[in-house]
């Protein structure tokens, strides 16, 4: 049964409401929100955080937390970029994706092993691997901003369509990488909803011991999860540098906390077990729209960070309150109903 109360006890409607309010505010302040090119710009800005949020959400659902996925994305894409540049490779970009995804998978497998088989706490392990991977990238590979191979430049120029702003005549191009986001979302959706592996991720997040007893192979599921997250991060890295035609090793570092915040804002429970892709994408969309509309709203540059902080606090506060009260009401109801049974 889908009841209004059950819907209101989730965070998706509240985040959606916040997005609508924010959009209306931007529209009112700039007249530029609901224009084709602005929406395309926002969609483009959503690609990288959106891709990262998928893996981040899956890890949190499984009861873990990962703060190293941006380090994986950076290291995997940087090594790939360097290898391809030095070998003078000029072929298909798919190889770059495969390579970077592969490196990401290996890097993910390393901490996946520590988490799944040695049962070490995820936050600590990923803090360690995050530090390790960024250190390796800057230390061993002496990373600094670099060119990208021609295949990636071409890939970055693949455009799906061009949207024109009727009023100003400005145009924005929808990059083909949005398809990767859509594809990954679809893949993750199918995985999480229709495979036992995906249900296992939720089951582990709910009660790991129970999952083991039920016959889930908890270790393999976790191992798979972190490999998947690593591969996804590696792929994200290539999308990012292709779109910018420029491989800056630091371009994604530091995004991890914002992505985690967006995922939690989207209703994923910090302690695991609950979380939807819809909520995740709404959460990351809210954060992306906010980050990319401060000028449109007209917040002075010097106050933009204070404004962002205030919105995060108010947004998460309201969401937390609403869910708490909706859940509280329902709990009471269940109790009295249960009493009669």
């Amino acid at each position: 049964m889908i009841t209004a109360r059950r819907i209101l006890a989730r965070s998706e409607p509240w985040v959606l409401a916040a997005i609508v309010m924010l959009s209306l505010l931007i529209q009112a302040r700039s007249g530029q929100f609901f224009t084709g090119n602005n929406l395309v710009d926002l969609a483009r800005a959503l690609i990288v955080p959106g891709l990262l949020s998928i893996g981040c959400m899956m890890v949190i659902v499984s009861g873990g937390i990962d703060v190293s996925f941006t380090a994986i994305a950076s290291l995997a894409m940087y090594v790939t970029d360097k290898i391809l540049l030095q070998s003078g490779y000029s072929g298909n970009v798919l190889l770059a994706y495969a390579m970077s995804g592969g490196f990401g998978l290996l890097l993910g497998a390393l901490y996946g092993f520590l988490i799944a088989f040695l049962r070490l706490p995820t936050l600590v392990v990923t803090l360690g691997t995050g530090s390790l991977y960024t250190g390796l990238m800057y230390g061993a590979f002496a990373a600094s901003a670099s060119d990208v191979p021609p295949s990636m430049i071409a890939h970055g120029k693949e455009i799906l369509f061009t949207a024109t702003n009727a009023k100003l005549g400005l145009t924005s191009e929808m990059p083909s990488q949005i398809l990767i986001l859509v594809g990954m979302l679809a893949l993750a959706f199918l995985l999480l909803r229709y495979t036992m592996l995906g249900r296992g991720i939720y089951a582990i997040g709910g009660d790991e011991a129970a999952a083991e007893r039920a016959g889930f192979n908890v270790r393999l599921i976790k191992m798979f999860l972190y490999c998947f997250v690593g591969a996804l991060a590696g792929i994200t890295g290539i999308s990012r540098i292709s779109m910018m035609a420029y491989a800056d090793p630091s371009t994604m570092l530091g995004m991890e906390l914002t992505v985690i915040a967006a995922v939690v804002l989207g209703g994923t429970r910090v302690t695991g077990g609950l979380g939807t892709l819809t909520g995740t994408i709404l959460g990351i969309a809210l954060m992306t729209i906010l980050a990319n509309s401060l000028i449109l709203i007209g917040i002075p540059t010097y106050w933009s960070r204070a404004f962002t902080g205030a919105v995060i606090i108010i947004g998460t506060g309201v969401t937390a309150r609403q869910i708490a009260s909706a859940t509280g009401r329902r709990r009471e109801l269940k109790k009295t109903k249960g009493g009669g049974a």
Partner: protein
Amino acid sequence: MASTVLKVEGIEKSFGGVRALKGVSLEIRAGEIHCLAGENGSGKSTLIKVISGAHEPDAGWIEIGGRRLTRLSPIEAISHGVQVIYQDFSIFPNLTVMENLALNMELMDKRAFMNYRRARAIAARAVSQIGFDIDLDERVENFSVADRQLIAICRALLQDSKLIIMDEPTSALTKKEVKALFSVIKDLQSRGISILFVSHKLDEVFEISERYTILRSGENVAMGSTDELDRSAFAFHMTGREFSEESYRPAGPRGDPILSVKGLSRRGCYSGISFDLAPGEILGITGLLGSGRTELVETLFGLTRPDSGAVEVRGNRARIRSVKEAIRHGLGYVPSDRLTEGLFLPQTIERNTVIAVLDRLAGGLGLLRRKAVAETTARWIRDLSIATKDPSLPVRTLSGGNQQKVVLARWLANDLSVLILNGPTMGVDIGSKYDIHALMRKLAAEGLAIIIVSDDLPEVLACASRIIVMREGAFVRELDPASTTESVLSELSTGVA
């Protein structure tokens, strides 16, 4: 002679130097209801885990399906038709009822994909077996403990089982639910399924089982047919001690009421509750789960706020808006869920004991006086005969009964006027149960006012000086335990004559 479903012989198992099982044997025949009894820590749970393949025994063998094995994997156990319903139910609180019911089946069938239509069919079949009416799309965490238990039972029934092991299945169930469960068990038996019923409640053992095995300290102490067992022998085998439950006839209330509740109501929980409590009284409040009994005492203890009504302590209006204020008014509360609400499991016994009286043990600058802390702890360990070698060990190393005593000690260390106990002996072994009952009587005799919230009717009858029955958030009737019986209480609780 009936054929044997499962037989274990000479099982040994040690954890970290502690021998949990010392050569235990058990035989379960086809189609029988067999009771495995023993106090907490006697090795029952370990034995179950060996049978279900969760633990590998250090020595001994298991005979199942005509084969003699030295170890068993969980999958093998299940494929041999052994199903366990654990005490914690092993369910996923974050998933829907439907998924909880269907996932195990699907995993057994080695399915890689989730088919929601098939899952719904499985779930519907599962709940229909015991006529359980529940919303399949609701998340399990939103249901009561009793409902969760039934979900776990429905799930176990789905498998093509030869043997269902139920680990203390009734500990969180009300009388009515226990009855329903027993009829389900009988029904299963009639289908030829054996049941291994793990319990330490003697009424249940006598009511349901045909044969029994009793463990104590990891060893077999008795086995045989239930017909040939009497109550005192049962208690003796379990504990190694002789008990006689003297019936308690308190002196009755002494002096003015210390706690008066006047027309207390909270929407959706209880309404119009009024009663007085005098020093030396033990007030029993009984009712089914969801009758509002727990909600009522949680309000008294400041955990929730009433919508209307008043509470008076020693004749003065008391506004209890937080637990701290309740403590200041001399109230103490032993919650029903010891593990999550009562104890800080990985912390030391000492810290768990003194946590509510830290104020009094702190000297200048809020620093604790170590000696005073140690003395207080030692005193309560002695007074309540808590069985531990070292108070600096984590409290989770204690048995259930001793853990409950630690929670009690925490409140007794305060100068209490009113002690509220919610399910004081739930999941506690017989020995500790007698200890706790005796302690309550002693405290009442010393002038403490006590409220026991319990659906363990013999307990309420044995301990309380008066009994109030709650149903659907209201007081139904007040009774004198001397002139009432279990069946009267049970009828009043359920509203069914």
